[in-house]
């Protein structure tokens, strides 16, 4: 096995992995603010991609489609929170999670009715010519995905650790009542977290669409893999999610390339299970979280 083949496999892994990482980030943000897992996260990714493809198809320039799509999906995330999550008087984690599952089904159905069942596509942001590196080829769009994931991770980290609002968000997750007592507007923080994570998901959806193509069912896959990455990295830890996303991607790609493509998903899943056996809180998670 030559270095260029190995490198090529690693590149493929990074491509897929950065997609997983982007979805995992959205999971983390809502978890950080509310302590719930938003199972509609994958659908936000799908909606981002679909909206952007639709706008681009309608003749908007690429960057306008990007910005508009992120804004629209973020607005949708906000209204989802206001209409479905917020009205609950005494929210229990389980019922909230159920609501997000219902939301995911609703979004999927709506997307099917709006745009049909066909696969949509988007032009690559900076062409299709692969970047050559030591004999391995990298799709330029991968750099966009990786860059977007990296920028969002860093921004999130700075936001959560160094701004008042970010700290307030973390406070809400660790103890809602205490947070409210100190004067944190819990309501608005939750709204913000849904808006942001919908926007992040949508941004991810737009940048991955040139690589993966998009259809109304694709969100389920992103949700599942993103969730695995979020768990593996330790829920609530954006840096961990980023690393874990890349790890899962690399593991899938290396096992497909070195062992056999027939067992690709199995290898990744077994690795995930093995890690969780020994560290149930995830690789970079902390046990003190509830």
């Amino acid at each position, binding site marked *: 096995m030559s270095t260029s083949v190995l490198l090529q496999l690693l*590149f493929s892994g990074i491509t897929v992995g950065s997609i997983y990482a982007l979805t995992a980030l959205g999971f983390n943000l809502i978890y950080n603010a509310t302590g719930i897992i938003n199972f509609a996260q994958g659908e936000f990714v799908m909606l981002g991609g679909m909206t952007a493809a639709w706008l681009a198809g309608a003749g908007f320039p690429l960057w306008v489609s990007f910005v508009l799509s992120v804004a629209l999906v973020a607005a949708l995330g906000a209204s989802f929170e206001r209409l479905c999550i917020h009205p609950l008087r005494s929210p229990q984690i389980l019922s909230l999670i159920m609501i997000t599952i219902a939301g995911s089904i609703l979004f999927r159905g709506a997307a099917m009715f709006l745009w049909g*069942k066909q696969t*949509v596509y988007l032009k690559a942001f900076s062409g299709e010519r*692969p970047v050559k590196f030591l004999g391995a080829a990298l799709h330029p769009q991968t750099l966009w995905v990786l860059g977007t994931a990296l920028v969002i991770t860093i921004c999130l980290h700075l936001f959560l650790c160094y701004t008042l609002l970010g700290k307030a968000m973390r406070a809400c997750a660790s103890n809602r009542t205490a947070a409210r007592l100190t004067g944190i507007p819990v309501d608005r923080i939750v709204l913000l977290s849904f808006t942001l994570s919908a926007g992040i998901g949508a941004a991810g959806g737009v940048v991955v669409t040139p690589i993966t*193509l998009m*259809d109304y069912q694709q969100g389920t*896959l992103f949700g599942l893999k993103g969730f695995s990455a979020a768990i593996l990295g330790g829920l609530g830890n954006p840096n961990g999610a980023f690393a874990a996303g890349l790890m899962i991607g690399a593991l899938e790609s290396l096992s*497909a*390339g070195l062992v056999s493509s027939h067992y690709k*998903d199995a290898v990744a899943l077994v690795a995930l299970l093995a890690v969780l056996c020994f560290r149930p809180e995830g690789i970079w998670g902390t046990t003190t979280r509830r």
Partner: protein
Amino acid sequence: MFRKGLMLLLAVCLAISGAHAKKEPYKVGAVFAITGPASWLGEPERNTVQMIAEQVNKEGGINGHPLELIIEDTAGDETRTVNAVNKLINKDKVLAIVGPSRSGTTLAVVPIVERAKVPLISCAAAEAIVSPPEKRRWVFKTPQKDSDAVIRIYEHMKERGITRIAILTGTTGFGAQGRKQLKKYASKFGIEIVADETYGPRDTDMTPQLTRIKASGARAVVNWSIVPAQSIVPKNMRQLGMTIPLYQSHGFGNIKYVKAAGEAAEGVIFPCGRLLIAEQLPDDHPQKKVLMEYKRAYERKFKEPVSTFGGHAYDAFWLVINALKEVGPDRAKIRDYIEHVKGFVGTGGIFNFSPKDHNGLTKDAFAILTVRKGRFTLLED
């Protein structure tokens, strides 16, 4: 005055319904995966049979009998298909059934129609649907055979002197069947499979598999799937700088896959029925008239490009209508009639049924197509 008017209205109603009830309607059932993951099969099929039924009834029905089409949605699911077929047979008492759309759902209802003795013309591909023939007395199918698609691909490779190939297949039923046939026929054509890779139905990146294929020294790749992977594989190959020819299955016959793959789709070679390139056929081609008629009518009515899957339903439904025209409302006679149809020109090819062959098509039903400038082009008839 009011009462008089009412009586008159009643009389008129009676007269109208009386005129309609003159001849008993012929009931035909249709079961398609109109919703669910295989809806891209079921939708054009449903559209097609509805269009034909409207046309037949507008022209006065079958020998004066109106055609009553009863459509059931299977959602691509075996249990729902079984229920739908039972309902059509026991409650609606249909004379024949068109569909289902998928191989799995068809195989699930084969025992039912065999027992109830109702002719069924499937729009699904798997060869097991019509074999062994002695256990499939009441079952027919209109799509071409997978093995014929494989044979056409291998013949084309042989002409070009390609002997070492890689196969890449999806893990869906269609992909797995293709893999089986590709492996089965390779040695007969002196072709060696040097790499055998698979991928899941929703995978978004096949570069790991293609990296292995690239290292294996294969001179051509065959990709066999019906999922969007058909657009991703050519893109990935281009990304890896692979220039060896890419063959795909007849599942590639959807112009949207070509658009999604963009420039990377140029030069992809695949076997397919002639519906998609009907305009390019010479005027004296026996299928040209049927293909053009269907294509124009469908595209005018539904404002979307015609697909080969709708074509399978077109062939199946016309077989039933022709049988009803000839032998009338008798299930056994309909079966016997279809079993002896010769030279029926459909969208999938020219059908010659026999007691041993309930598909009626040969490998000549496939033409070899390629993509040039974003359009399907006839490469070899």
